[in-house]
């Protein structure tokens, strides 16, 4: 869907801006300069205002992400369920290092609590959530979803 089509689904009121940006993120994968300009024109807002919102939130990116991002929850309850062992296993399997950008294809990051503490440890690949991930089961997930 083009940006124009997404924009026209919403009324140009400021409370719809976040919804529009989320939708663009979903369709386009990121919110670049072109997308920001489109939204700024439609909402009659300064470009800087739109960009400041787009660059603030975790679920939106202002640059194209070429790497697959794997996130793992670092919250206390997930730690108790051995989320760090799962992280070590992912590091080993993909030969990457936690929070290190060096590898071209994958990136392993820590994420903040997703409120699923009763189903931890939580692993997220491209916004898809995996619950109760064990070091023994993580290679299955990586094989199927990467």
């Amino acid at each position, binding site marked *: 869907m083009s940006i124009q089509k997404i924009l026209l689904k919403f009324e140009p009121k400021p409370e719809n801006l976040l919804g529009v940006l989320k939708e663009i993120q979903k369709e386009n994968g990121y919110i670049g300069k072109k997308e920001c300009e489109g939204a700024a024109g439609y909402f009659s807002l300064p470009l800087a205002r739109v960009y400041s919102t787009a660059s603030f939130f975790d679920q939106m990116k202002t640059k194209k992400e070429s790497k697959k991002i794997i996130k793992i929850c670092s*919250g*206390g309850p997930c730690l108790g369920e051995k989320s760090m062992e799962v992280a070590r296993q992912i590091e080993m399997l993909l030969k990457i290092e936690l929070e290190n950008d060096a590898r071209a294809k994958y990136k392993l990051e820590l994420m903040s609590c997703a409120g699923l503490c009763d189903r931890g440890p939580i692993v997220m690949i491209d916004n898809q959530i995996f619950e109760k991930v064990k070091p023994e089961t993580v290679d299955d997930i990586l094989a199927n979803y990467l």
Partner: protein
Amino acid sequence: MNILTRSWDKINPLDIGSYIRQRGYEALQKAIREMVPADVIKEIKISGLRGRGGAGFSTGEKWEMAAGQNSRSDLERARGATSNGKYFICNLDESEPGTYKDRTIAEKNPHQIIEGLLIGAYAIGAKKAYIYINGNYKKQAEILRIAVGQAREKEFLGRGILGSAIDIEVEIFEGAGAYICGEETALINSIEGKRGEPRLKPPFPPVSGLFGRPTIVNNAETLANIPYILRQGAKKYSQIGSSVSPGTKLFILSGAVKNKGAHEAPLGITPQELIFNSLYGGGLETGKEFWFAQIGGASGRLVPAGKLDQPLTYGNCEYPLGSGSVLVVDKNADLKDLLLSWAGFFHRESCGKCVPCREGTYRLWEIAKRLKNNDLPLTNCNNASERDININKNHKEGQLVRGEREKDRENIEDILWTLSRTTFCPLGKFASVAWNDAIKMFGKKIFDK
């Protein structure tokens, strides 16, 4: 005593009929048909209900502040307030690590929240209400959307509620993943399409909030208590729990405890009872030994074994209740992992608006990484090789390594002092709480290595 969880197992969250059969929406009908808004506010004030998000402000007093605000002033017009109305927002942006009480309510009984929201909107005279839900709670947002649709069909919301002249529109607003948006002014900014950064208070939202208009932001669990209070009477509610903060609370138990999950208990309960009573936590998992508990998520204080008998209330107590989550840590846990987890969380979630928090949480996270990896801090040497030589020398002499560590220790004290006293909003203070306790209680364990 069950108020929130009373009929959870009898209710199908996707069917409004099952909620109505459990006396659902009776309180809303009573409010609209038999009470004027001032009566509703009075009733909530008498009940002594306090906000369940963590701060524990009196809900009735908050509503009264907003209800007293009249139509748009010239000053507001000059500031760009475009409407004449007031707003009521349900805060379901739950992102405190270890907390999922609001998610559970939304999953099990969404109408409970919606009914409370409608009563609140009626009481302050708001025509528009929002449910601001955490961007990660996609399924729960869908449940709420269905629930709002069913309530509209039954004329509980929308235009002309229950045949009266009252209009209240409810909209589900999904966040985009930011812990700080749980703070009410940051939440308001994010609905307005701005960065989710907190605003200077005062003016408080009940005076000037969303689009410059009087706005109430209440936690979802607070609102879930409202229908019960109106149905059963404020007197009855005020006798439950402790006298300073009546009612019950959803506690989330996690960590090394046997029965993990959401448990409803009267306020004033002690952590001892929560963790060890078979009604709630049921003690520790077999083979694990209690070390300490953290009350209120990553921003909560640490409670050692000797202090478990302090009651948990929203009054003046040593261990603030916060969001009501209890993380039980056993003696096998790695404290440095936890320190890194807390520091990393606040470093990621600091919004960057004020320097003490942005830099403080960043430096604390750096030190936490060093502690975890047993690295030494960088010295003041100008060139790297000189530094390496120094470090090598220090390693040999052992004594000096401790001196290097001491630098980190001093810096931590500085950072924690700054975080707890000088940041713009409470996030910085939250970041320092658990660290402060950990350094006080286990400083030796952390640094002597």
